[in-house]
């Protein structure tokens, strides 16, 4: 809920700055390594936004999949984080990789009336 409150604060700030009568949608970019559940976030939103221009707005999630870059050949590849084995580069098979996406957390855009 604290993070949903932060999303609401940002949406209201931009809504007011743009003299909005109503916020229709809020698009957030969330990496797959973040602990966000869409239904619960919307439920928190519906509760927290009561009495504001954001009440009734729909939260849209833009999920960012987990990807890594190979420290050997710099190949970028996506993988299933839940696999038991350490992910290996899809090009050279190297096991030495580092994460590059999956941690995103931002309000991307809002639509307003």
């Amino acid at each position, binding site marked *: 809920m*604290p993070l949903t409150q932060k999303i609401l604060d940002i949406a209201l700030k931009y809504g007011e700055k743009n003299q909005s009568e109503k916020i229709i949608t809020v698009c957030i970019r969330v990496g797959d390594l973040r602990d966000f559940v869409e239904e619960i976030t919307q439920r928190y939103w519906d509760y927290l936004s009561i009495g504001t221009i954001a009440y009734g707005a729909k939260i849209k999630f833009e999920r960012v999949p987990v990807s890594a870059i190979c420290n050997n050949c710099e190949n970028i590849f996506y993988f299933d984080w839940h696999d038991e084995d350490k992910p290996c580069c899809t090009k050279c098979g190297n096991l030495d990789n580092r994460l590059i996406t999956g941690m995103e957390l931002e309000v991307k855009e809002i639509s307003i009336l």
Partner: protein
Amino acid sequence: MSDIKLINVKESILTDNDNDALFLREKLEKENVFMLNIMSSPGAGKTSLIIATLKTLQDKYRIGVIEGDIDSMVDSEKIVQNGGHAVQINTGGDCHLDSFMIKSAIDTMDLDNYDVIIIENIGNLVCPAEFDTGANLNVMILSVPEGDDKILKYPLMFQVCDVLIINKIDCVKMFDFNFDALMNRAALVNPKMKIFQVSAKTGEGIEAWCDWLSEKITV
């Protein structure tokens, strides 16, 4: 009828907290105080590890503890009973400590009297990972009975921590804890994370942890 307008935002959800944390980190640096933030699930051994750390390092550093709990003074009382100084934050429902709460606690402390502040965050592997407290070092405790697969369920916590302390290794024979599986995943999500195996109960591994911590404390 009004037209719908699309407003480009691209703002991190945690900007305000991150700014407060940055301010706090700079303030503590000026005051020569080093702060570490200890996080874990409930019952992993945060208070026990803090007490073991206090006992090992209290002749070397003046240590204060900020205790975060939804309710009660239980952990603060334990710290005081073991010779420590504690400030209690009761969040009244919030499941994490943020930089504003930590700043409020620090404002009640005379920083001239401390070299090190240890934060005991709320027992939770989700929200505390999201909120920078202004600490110099983030430490996660994973206890053996919780299992090696916590990194799959709560990857962010492992990603934001500088140190992973695997606690309760004295009971490792009773559980199917796969160290290799944990290390493989940790190496990917956070290759720079330092890992210690300890038992806060028997003292095993505490000296190695405290020696390493002493090297990191730059006051």
